[in-house]
């Protein structure tokens, strides 16, 4: 599936704006501790891809992430971003060039949404007009109406909205690299799924290099182009595409970490935009219901989708509702089964089950309606996914020094550098 992800991004009009990151034999040893928190890690993070760091708590994944922007200074080793060694440059200047998102957004509660987002551009000395325009642009990007949200304070936002503003702030100065530390850990599962979809949508627009720490393996499979599974002391157990990790876990540790149900997790590997969607009859508020009904009957479809002026779905209407109505109303139906096109088939099935519908509406960038996915589509896609398995992608480099532990299906985890959690 990374295959199709990569080809689809290459096909899109956006070019990769991300930078490659190379960690070279990076070690972090805290004073007074014998074992390293991160031991001699060499890791290549390809430009424009999403790399997920997963592992048990205390394994050093967060330490590794924070060494990329030098919030934690490595004890030894080099950090190279886009070919430039950034190990010794001014840390504050480095961090202004790298987006950083933490749990719940980490917004400053005494500043408005706009001032939060404007922090980095201000530090970089942008002029006011440019900053204001950028703030609005970013709020649009994360699907928040600038008019409505610009002047709000963080406590006036929901958890999911705060997280979106957090992402907007991180993207403010258009950094090539985005680091995320358990970004979706503090929101409820449904919001989390939406935010994940949205992140993937944003990524398809901006093409950054994203490094994201999570403890949720499903999240890693869903978001990651590549997944790095760490053991204690940031020992790399496996660094590969989600498909291959699921199909060929490198060690018992990885197997245990994936957990049971690896088969079902394959569902998580296919995205809604990779299957054929069904076209739908769409209409807008204010149209005559009888016209829509006859259109519907002519096409043999069961439902019509009402869209707002920006093409976002408001509600669905079946034949019976249409025959009763005169004019199409523009009220929003909160129970509408909607999935983002970056959602996995797993999410889509989930959404259908929750709404007790055999279909779900699919939305693309900025919540614009793109089509309908049905239960049949999902079933066919599962069957197709099971029969094909790509295996010709070179995984990026990842190993710990002192142990020849190249990501290799046969190799056992090295014993060196472990540290009590």
């Amino acid at each position: 599936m990374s295959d199709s992800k990569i080809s689809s991004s290459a096909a899109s009009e956006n070019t990769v704006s991300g930078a490659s990151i190379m960690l070279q034999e990076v070690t972090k040893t805290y004073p007074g501790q014998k074992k390293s928190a991160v031991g001699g890690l060499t890791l290549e993070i390809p430009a424009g891809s999403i790399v997920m760091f997963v592992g048990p708590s205390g394994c050093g994944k967060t330490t590794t992430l924070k060494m990329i922007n030098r919030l934690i200074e490595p004890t030894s080793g080099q950090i190279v971003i886009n070919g430039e060694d950034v190990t010794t440059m001014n840390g504050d200047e480095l961090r202004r060039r790298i987006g950083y998102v933490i749990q719940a957004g980490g917004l400053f509660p005494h500043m408005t949404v706009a001032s939060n987002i404007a922090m980095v551009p201000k530090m970089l000395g942008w002029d006011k007009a440019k900053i204001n325009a950028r703030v609005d642009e970013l709020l649009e990007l994360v699907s928040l109406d600038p008019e409505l949200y610009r002047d709000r304070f963080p406590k006036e936002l929901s958890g999911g909205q705060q997280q979106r503003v957090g992402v907007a702030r991180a993207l403010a100065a258009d950094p090539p690299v985005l680091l995320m530390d358990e970004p979706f850990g503090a929101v409820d599962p449904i919001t989390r799924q939406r935010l994940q979809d949205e992140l993937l949508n944003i990524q398809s627009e901006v093409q950054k290099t994203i490094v994201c720490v999570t403890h949720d393996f499903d999240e890693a499979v869903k978001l990651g182009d590549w997944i790095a599974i760490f053991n204690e002391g940031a020992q790399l157990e496996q660094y590969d595409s989600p498909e291959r990790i699921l199909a060929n876990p490198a060690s018992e540790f990885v197997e245990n970490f994936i957990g049971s149900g690896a088969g079902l997790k394959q569902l998580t590997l296919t995205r809604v935009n990779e299957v054929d969607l069904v076209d739908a009859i769409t209409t807008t508020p204010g149209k005559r219901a009888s016209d829509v009904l006859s259109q519907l009957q002519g096409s043999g479809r069961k439902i019509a989708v009402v869209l707002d002026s920006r093409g976002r779905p408001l509600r669905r209407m079946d034949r019976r509702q249409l025959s009763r109505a005169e004019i199409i109303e523009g009220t929003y139906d909160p129970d509408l089964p909607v999935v983002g096109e970056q959602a996995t088939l797993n999410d889509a099935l989930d959404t259908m089950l929750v709404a007790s519908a055999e279909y779900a509406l699919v939305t693309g960038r900025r919540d614009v309606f793109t089509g309908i996915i049905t239960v049949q589509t999902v079933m066919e896609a599962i069957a197709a996914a099971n029969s094909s398995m790509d295996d010709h992608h070179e995984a990026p480099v990842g190993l710990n020094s002192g142990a020849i532990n190249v990501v290799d299906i046969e190799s056992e985890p090295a014993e060196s550098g472990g540290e009590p959690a």
Partner: protein
Amino acid sequence: MSKETKGLIYQLVAIAAAFAALVIWLVTADLTDTERQTLDPGTIWKYTQEHLQITLVSAVIVLLIAIPLGILLTRPSLRKAAPAVRAVANFGQAAPAIGVIVLLAFWLGFGPKTAVVSLVIYAILPVLSNTIVGLQQVDERLVEAGRGIGMSQMAVLFKVELPLAVPVMLSGIRTALVLLVGTATLATFINGGGLGILITTGVNLNLNVVLIAGSLMVALLALTVDWIGRLVEQLARPKGLS
């Protein structure tokens, strides 16, 4: 109107009413000549000015010492020293104020300067410990978020930590000011001036009206300072915090 705003208005009304009652009482009361002389409005105004002067000078010195010290003691490198410094500050407040003032006077000489020194020792604790607590209660993750987006340590301190600590710090400053107004009464024992002289005169010459008037003046002054403190707290509270 918020609860706090209402409280502010009530307090102001109460202060004004009490002051008016005091004035009416003094004007209508049957005073002896000595009492009338001691309670001459011009003299009382002079004492009040002295009193405020001692209070304000001490307060400014307290702020200049306690706030930077509190900031330093919450920086990672000096965090360990915080308990020790707080213990010393605690000692300053735990010692009886009258004892500190008199002992210092023997050492530094009698006069307003010594009064200020002892008041500073006495009032440093609330400001220091509220500065420390105010900065400590700032969410660690916000500091990290600030550093993570490329703010320098100084920028994080001035734009994130201090603004978020302001409510707690201001309430410490208000406590200190009220303490100072009350304790400045003792300055009179070492020739420091202030409204305390009315009280001592009242006690020494058995002039109850003077004693009561002096005590009430100090109490009203303290309440007024408290009111101003509350007002500033309201106005300076960062928006976006509830």
